[in-house]
């Protein structure tokens, strides 16, 4: 194509007009798109409204049928790299949110679920209940000695595991029936002791005369009389931590350090809780306004090896998930967990640190067909200051997953673990040698921009000087070129602004400015 032909084609084409129109449009459109007046509140509400909207859709989809039971593994971090404080906070908030979801039923934690397998405090209390029921049956059947042995086991289990005892009426009832069983077995001393303990725990109770003989009722009444005459003591409960919750006989009395003045004479059951740490003690109150101090030393309890109370399949499952690499090998653990918990679904969330944020990757397993899906990732900032909206989103994703289990999100093998950094030998690009060669070669396919301070490479054949006609078209060329440049700049700038406006910039921070 000759220069004349090129000039002529440019002069003729309508491209110049289109270009100008495009530039004008883009110039006006760009700033409009860039002015995002959406407020932070609207964005946050959009998150929560989206979560609520999805919840409503989920409810519409599930017309009838039992509410799916979901077991939620504790939120963990990839390879345990994130501090437990973070995972526990996310876990607590997510469980709370899921617990309020109407589309599913959140199964309690494993320790509460495990029954007569004999593991964990709650399991032992459950065993105590079982023993108690058997003991009452034996008592009614007239097998008093067997009843006494069984009921004694029940009382021992309860007293040894006070941290798991929720209902103290259960303990008091066991004491009175144990006394009865001993009485009928001619163990008078044991009968007396247990009836006295019952009176100290429940001085306001009444004994059914058709069940409890006169002798036992007399012991009870005498002990109640002693308790009432002795009145209450002044108990000071101190701990090596402040704010630990103090329960006596199941009633919350305050937080350490606390003075309790309404506990009567006799044996009572004290439980002091500070987060995961629990102190239990059977205390003997002297009454008569006497001051007694009880020291609670949480630090002396030492680290409880909770994992020793958890079944092996569960701890293995946790380890596998924490590794970030799992697949079909998880299924035996998941099957066992669903059998133990009665859950229809199991969900777990892995937190991964990625630069200035935590990414939460949720997974849901459906027991009926062993399908695992991976939900949309949710990010939290490092300070967890956007916890509320992010947890809302996370629980909505899990809840939706339980409802729908979309097959397109199904996964078989997951690998979240970071790839080892490849040690790559950088290839020596051929072009790097060119500048040296280019400086010496006469023939250049294109002219590089001159770099300040260097000898400009020898140029190739030089275009002829423009003649007069070419000079007069320079302005038009510059105009076209400038318009093209402006259009290019407008397109680039608009794309940049659109990308920013779409939030690809860091949403975890904001700029705050104060003036006075």
């Amino acid at each position: 194509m000759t220069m004349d032909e090129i000039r002529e084609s440019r002069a003729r084409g309508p491209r110049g007009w289109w270009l100008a129109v495009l530039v004008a449009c883009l110039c006006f459109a760009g700033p409009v798109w860039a002015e995002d007046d959406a407020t932070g509140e609207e964005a946050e509400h959009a998150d929560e409204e989206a979560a609520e909207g999805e919840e409503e859709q989920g409810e519409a989809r599930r017309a009838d049928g039992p509410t799916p039971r979901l077991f939620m593994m504790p939120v963990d971090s990839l390879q345990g790299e994130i501090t437990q404080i973070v995972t526990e906070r996310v876990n607590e908030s997510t469980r709370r949110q899921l617990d309020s979801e109407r589309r599913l039923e959140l199964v309690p934690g494993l320790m509460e679920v495990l029954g007569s397998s004999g593991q964990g405090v709650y399991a032992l209390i459950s065993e105590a209940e079982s023993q108690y029921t058997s003991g009452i049956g034996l008592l009614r059947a007239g097998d008093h000695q067997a009843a006494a042995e069984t009921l004694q086991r029940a009382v021992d289990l309860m007293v040894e595991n006070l941290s798991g005892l929720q209902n103290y009426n259960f303990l008091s009832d066991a004491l009175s029936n144990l006394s009865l069983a001993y009485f009928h077995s001619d163990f008078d001393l044991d009968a007396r002791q247990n009836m006295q303990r019952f009176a100290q725990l429940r001085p306001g109770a009444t004994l059914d005369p058709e069940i409890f003989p006169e002798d036992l009722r007399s012991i009870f009444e005498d002990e109640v009389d002693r308790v009432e005459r002795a009145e209450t003591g002044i108990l000071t409960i101190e701990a090596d931590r402040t704010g630990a919750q103090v329960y006596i006989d199941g009633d919350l009395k305050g937080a350490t350090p606390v003075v309790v003045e309404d506990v009567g004479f006799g044996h009572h059951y004290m439980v002091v809780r500070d987060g995961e740490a629990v102190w239990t003690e059977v205390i003997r109150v002297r009454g008569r306004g006497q001051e007694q101090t009880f020291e609670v030393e949480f630090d002396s309890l030492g680290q409880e090896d909770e994992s020793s109370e958890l079944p092996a399949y569960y701890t293995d499952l946790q380890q596998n998930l924490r590794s970030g690499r799992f697949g079909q090998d998880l299924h035996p653990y998941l099957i066992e967990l669903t059998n133990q918990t009665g859950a229809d679904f199991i969900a777990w969330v892995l937190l991964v640190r990625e630069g200035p944020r935590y990414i939460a990757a949720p997974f849901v397993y459906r027991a009926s067909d062993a399908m695992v899906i991976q939900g949309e990732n949710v990010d939290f900032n490092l300070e967890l200051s956007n916890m509320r909206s992010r947890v809302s989103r996370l629980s909505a994703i899990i809840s939706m997953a339980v409802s729908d289990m979309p097959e397109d999100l199904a996964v078989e093998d997951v690998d979240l673990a970071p790839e080892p950094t490849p040690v790559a030998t950088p290839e020596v690009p051929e072009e790097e040698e060119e500048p040296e060669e280019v400086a010496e070669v006469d023939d250049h396919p294109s002219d590089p921009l001159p770099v300040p301070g260097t000898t400009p490479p020898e140029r190739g054949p030089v275009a002829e000087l423009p003649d007069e006609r070419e000079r007069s078209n320079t302005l038009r060329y510059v105009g076209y070129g400038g318009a093209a440049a402006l259009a290019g700049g407008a397109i680039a700038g608009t794309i940049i602004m659109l990308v920013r406006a779409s939030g690809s910039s860091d949403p975890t921070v904001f700029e705050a400015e104060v003036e006075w």
Partner: protein
Amino acid sequence: MVRAISTKKWILGLVVALAAAASFSCGGDDGTSRISVTLFGWIDGAGDGEFVQGMPEYPAADQIRVRITQPDERVILSEDVFPIVDGRALFPEASAGDGLRMDFEIIGDSNVIASGATPKFNVGESISYRAFRTMISPINAFAPVGSMVRIDGSNEERLVPSRFDGRELDSSLGRVGHTATATESGLVLIVGGGQVGAFHQPATTPDLQGVVGDIQLFDPATGYFTELAGDDEARRSSTVGADRLQVPRAFHTVTALGDDRFLVVGGYTQGSTSISATDSIEIINLNASPGARVQPLTDAAQSPMLLQNRRAMHTATLRESDGRVVIAGGRSGNEVRNTFEIINPNPQNPLVEGGLSMNSARVGHSAVLMGDGSSVWLLGGRTDTEVLGSTELISDGESGTSSSATANLQRPRYGASAIFMGPSVNNFILLAGGFTGLTSGATRNYELGRPDREEFLTDGSWQLSEARGNAALFELPQSRELLLIGGLNPDFQIVGNADRLQFQGLDAAVPFSVDASAGSMYRLRSGFATAPVSNGRYLITGGQGQNEAARQDAEYFNPRDPVLPRR
């Protein structure tokens, strides 16, 4: 080799393109949300004090500490100190999140002299810009609420004390017997009220000259009061009385039910010739469409549900256990009520259960929700012939809800301030101050009690800074200290200061240490309505000056309760 366009022209085009791209890329926002705060101040000067644009010249003030916090989570996200002379502070990368607030403390000689804070705000995923105008004022002191207004006929803007919105009313704006309640979006809801003539004894029938049915919202971000019915959309709804109470009233109760729904019960309304107590119950729902935000509580047949007994000056207590509201005592005409009623405001199954007997008729009593979230303890009060020392506990039993007598107060009183202290104080309630005589007399004493105890605990040394009744009592959210504002003294004269109570322990000789605020109210008033605001201050609205007409303005008390991070 022939080239289509010369090198120079390519270079020119490329440079222009780069410049164009640069011009589009630079100079605008950099893709990050921005919060911009402009401070103004209130300074007590000679005379009345004044608002000042920018930083007031507090004596010795040389630094300003700025914190970005999450008060509800008790987290401090960022903190820095800047010289006041700089005139500017910048946090280029503050953490985004929910429920954020910017707190400012003016420091001089290492002491905090004044403070202020923005209302709470959220910064989320999308880019946003928000501007606040925030007031700085001396700590533990009162200051008028300021707002920026444009002077008519000019472009001049001026900071002035805020007042109730009177655009829709043709009567005086001042009011007493109104209520102030915090909303979940950080605003304060002002409901009803009226104008009074002669002074009336506390807990007796007031000399109401008129009552209003308007509902106003106070926005701490602007300092403006805005009437709901003044909303353009409400006007367009063409509903008669849209977004106003159907029954204008004063000395009623407004109870927050959650989700920005509020229960309005009873009160005095203006009849043709006199005022009378009403049995009306209305629901304010701020989430409803403009024009439909106020509705009567209705049954399944859409008929309005009413109290069984008309009453005003009663107490209303929300039971957290079941969302029902216990309405107790009060008066109607010359009768002091000896009944309580339970309202279930749930729109799915609304219910009013009335005619439940109390042990004693009482008005001006205190009502406290106990730790079980269900029992309501009524303490003291008065009838027309005596000041009561009795107490009774309204609780659920096998045969329904009933009231049972509990221990007597050490000192009979009414108009006292009461609060449930929680497990950290052995679940005691604190009862402070109150009136001890029908026509005069107030006490500075406080007592601690529990329903299961045979007697209240007190001592001669357990005292407030001065005797007062009808004071407003709040628990500060961070320090958990107690704040007692205003009230009337034994001669029923206005008490203009505030007491700050700090718990020392039950084993201390005096369980609470008491510090009185250095200054007094900007405008002395009683019968005001108070509510906490999300900027950390307490809003005091309306009320009546001594021998004055009802007030239409508002002021803040600034208690300085800095965010205390969780241990």
